[in-house]
């Protein structure tokens, strides 16, 4: 038991920044550049961790609480979600709601930390973050409801269990496809990727998440980046598991499929970012309402 928890956390901690490297490499390939090395996110984190903190005189302890919660929450949420064949260490009826609400906690503190600087840029980012994610949240829940209908249990372990394979081949396959699309959109919103947000520019008025963390520096900024990478991995894990529902029964093999799926997802995100422009801000809520409606269709399909 203990060894499996340790393995679970190690996979998360070690593997999390890699998909970011893959995304950047994919984007570079599309742009015809060589691009940074695959392991660049690791170097960045190491460099930031060695630096010192700098604080504005406006800030209070809440400014540090943002990065701390942003780092701890994905770590805890990862314990609720299975990685491939490796079952989630903590699993109980209704854990999926804890999973969703934990990210709410992170959002609360990140946005509060942004407001703590007293800068209007960061206020702007905080507003956009909370606005868009309260629209993304119903989508996420509809998706989970569809999965729960198939599993007839309310733990993430069984939601993402072996029955998914048969579900794809049954009538429910269409709705699984729909929620896969919806969850992909939710993943892009939650992880502030193009077309909703651009993680590479920091000071355009159109930015959301990145403008919130503008004033963080050194290790605090490193924690935010690391937390974001883990969040991508944890939420991505949900998608990968639905998209690749094969289970061989041997843990190492399943893990390989899972990690391979994560890298595939990263490539997909990279392709989307290279081929799409960022949406205008008023379009974002419209897209999110659209995905919510799509996920309602998916739910109706499994309920009928």
């Amino acid at each position, binding site marked *: 038991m203990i060894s499996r928890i340790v393995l679970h956390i190690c996979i998360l901690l070690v593997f999390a920044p890699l998909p970011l490297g893959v995304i950047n490499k994919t984007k570079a390939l599309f742009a015809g550049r060589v691009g940074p090395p695959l392991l660049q996110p690791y170097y960045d984190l190491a460099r930031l961790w060695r630096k010192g*903190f700098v604080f504005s005189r406006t*800030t209070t302890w*809440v400014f540090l609480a943002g990065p701390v919660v942003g780092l*701890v929450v994905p770590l*805890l949420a990862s314990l609720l979600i299975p990685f491939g064949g490796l079952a989630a260490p903590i699993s109980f009826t*209704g854990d999926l709601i804890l999973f969703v609400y934990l990210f709410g906690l992170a959002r609360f503190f990140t946005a509060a930390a942004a407001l*703590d600087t007293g800068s*209007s840029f960061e206020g702007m980012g905080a507003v956009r973050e909370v606005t868009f994610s309260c629209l993304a949240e119903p989508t996420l829940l509809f998706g989970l409801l569809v999965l729960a209908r198939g599993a007839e249990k309310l733990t993430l372990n069984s939601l993402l269990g072996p029955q998914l394979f048969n579900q794809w081949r049954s009538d429910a396959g269409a709705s699984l496809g729909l929620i896969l699309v919806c969850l992909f959109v939710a993943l892009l919103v939650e992880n502030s990727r193009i077309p909703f947000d651009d993680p590479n520019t920091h000071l355009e008025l159109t930015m959301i998440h990145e403008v919130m963390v503008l004033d963080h520096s050194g290790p605090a900024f490193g924690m935010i980046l690391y937390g974001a990478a883990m969040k991508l991995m944890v939420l991505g894990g949900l998608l990968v598991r639905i998209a690749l529902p094969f289970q061989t029964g041997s843990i190492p093999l399943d893990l390989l499929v899972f990690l391979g799926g994560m890298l595939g997802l990263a490539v997909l995100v990279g392709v989307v970012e290279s081929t799409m422009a960022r949406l205008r801000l008023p379009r974002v809520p419209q897209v999110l309402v659209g995905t919510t409606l799509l996920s309602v269709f998916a739910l109706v399909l499994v309920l009928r």
Partner: protein
Amino acid sequence: MMVWLLLVGVFLITTSGVFCLAVSRPPVRERIFCVQIVIGALLCVWPLTTAVAQSGLSLELDWSVPAGRFELGLDALSAVFIAPLLLVVVSGAIYGLRYWPSAEHSENAPKLGLFYGLISGAMILLLLARNSVLFLSAWEVMALSGYFLITTEDHKEDVRKAGFIYLIATHTGTLALFGLFAVINQVSGSGAFPLAGSLTGAGSSLIFLLGLLGFGMKAGLMPLHIWLPGAHAAAPSHASALLSGVMIKTGIYGLVRLTSFFAEIPAWWGWMILVLGAVSGILGVALAIAQHDIKRLLAYHSVENIGIIALGLGLALLGRSYGEPALVLLGLSGCLLHVINHGLFKSLLFMAAGSIIHAVGSRDLDHFGGLLKRQRWTGLFFLGGAVAISGLPPFNGFVSEWLIYLGVFQTLKSTSSALSVALLAAPALALIGGLALACFVKVFGVCFLGTARTEASARAHEAPPTMLWPMAALLLACSWIGLLPFSLRSILEQAVVNWSETTPTLSLGGDLAPLNMISLGGWLLLGLLGLTGWQVQRRSASAPADLGTWGCGFSFPTARMQYTASSFADSLVRLFRFGLWSHRQGGQVDGLFPKSKDFSSHTPDLVLDRGLTPTFSGLAWLFTRLRRIIQNGVAAIYLLYVVLTLVVLLTLVAY
């Protein structure tokens, strides 16, 4: 014996303000008042715990009032409502010592104390009453004391107006309740409350609708919430805490108790409450986001939370209609736990808001800013309350919302396809949660973070310990429920059994078991946060902290450049434009060198300001005109009226 102890406690609380009217020296008077309430509450605690552990307490006495005997009862269902009440009453009384001292408010402090005790005692009595006459008497005492609490500062115009609207609303509700209990008396044959599950179908729809009107008005369900925002904003903060945290729950208690009387529940009851709950939840929080007045904002959040509570109750009713015991258990436990939770964190938030108002002297959010540096503890307590009310782990709001979610998910397993429509409550709850989070990020950020927006805010001081300790106690209770939720498991299960005797007890065991895991999750979260926070704190201790926030090269930032409450809410308010209809004025700039421009936005209440007020002023105008025509002072015309009436009556008699 226990019952008498309880009655002595209630008596002490009720009369806490009466005796001190005789004492002339304000400090002595205040202390007597406070001590009496604390002793009264302590006396109630023991009977409360025995009532939960055993099957309950009851008392029957003869009295000379018609319609039955003087009947009291204390079961787990009543205990769930009384327990948070006692905590809020005591902490509010202690808080009031410094928040509303007689020395500074000599003209209205005695009045406030008198009615504070009276309303508290009346509420406990009404939760204990098992007789309709006793219930209604306690209800009226509560309603009228509430009026005097709201109009404490009756020299202010808007306070008088809020009190007036409250008075109309509460008496409309009471009127419905008179009808309700008249019908119940007729059906059951006595003034005593019927036993749980003893009433059958006769007249049940009428009873339910009357109850929904009367109790829904008090609870503040969405179209009936008109009195709530104004009233809660007008009262002194600790009285608002009592009104908003506890008094509106008596409406919920009424609905829960009323529905327990029936053996069978028609499905439309559950659907109706579920829909009203979803509407209250979403529109309540949307209206809250648009507010600038901190107490009005908190009041709208009560509408939202009543919506969440109604969602739980609606699910439980549906569970009874469709015969799903798990749904009954999870829905009602979620409903009742949220009643407790909302009582705790809403009172905490009102008191923290009171502490800010005390320090800055304004209720407008845009007059605050940067208060966390000067009000460390108030800020911490407010943050705790904000996290709790947004339904985030590891605080108590999460636990009750989680129970309601589980109830919603339970409908997935049901074979009835009609019931699966209730699934839509889950995304509604998610939307409410997301919006509440946005709203409290706004309030906490605008009040406590950034830099001070006004002189008064820059010179703000921390509240005295007398005001801080009550808040600390409430926050402690919030985190206790959040971190050890299974300690409330037995009382919740017992209350569910009290509510619906027909639900088989044996199926109740397993469904609340995951509360242990929620608790584990909460502790894990807290531990990890503490560890990481401590590490980061240690590493950052020596970092430079006297630099300005980076302003993109602009080096003269002012406090006015920060995001304000209105600008924060703007994008969300625009999303809900279809339901809010905010006024927006000005703000458009043109040309290269625009002159200074003003922008203001205001969101009136949907039902009161947009619906009722125009309708009633239209009616008043119409009737004035009619009266001028009919009552015109010509004696001959009056004689004509008499003749016409006579003719009509004679014709009627002839047929």
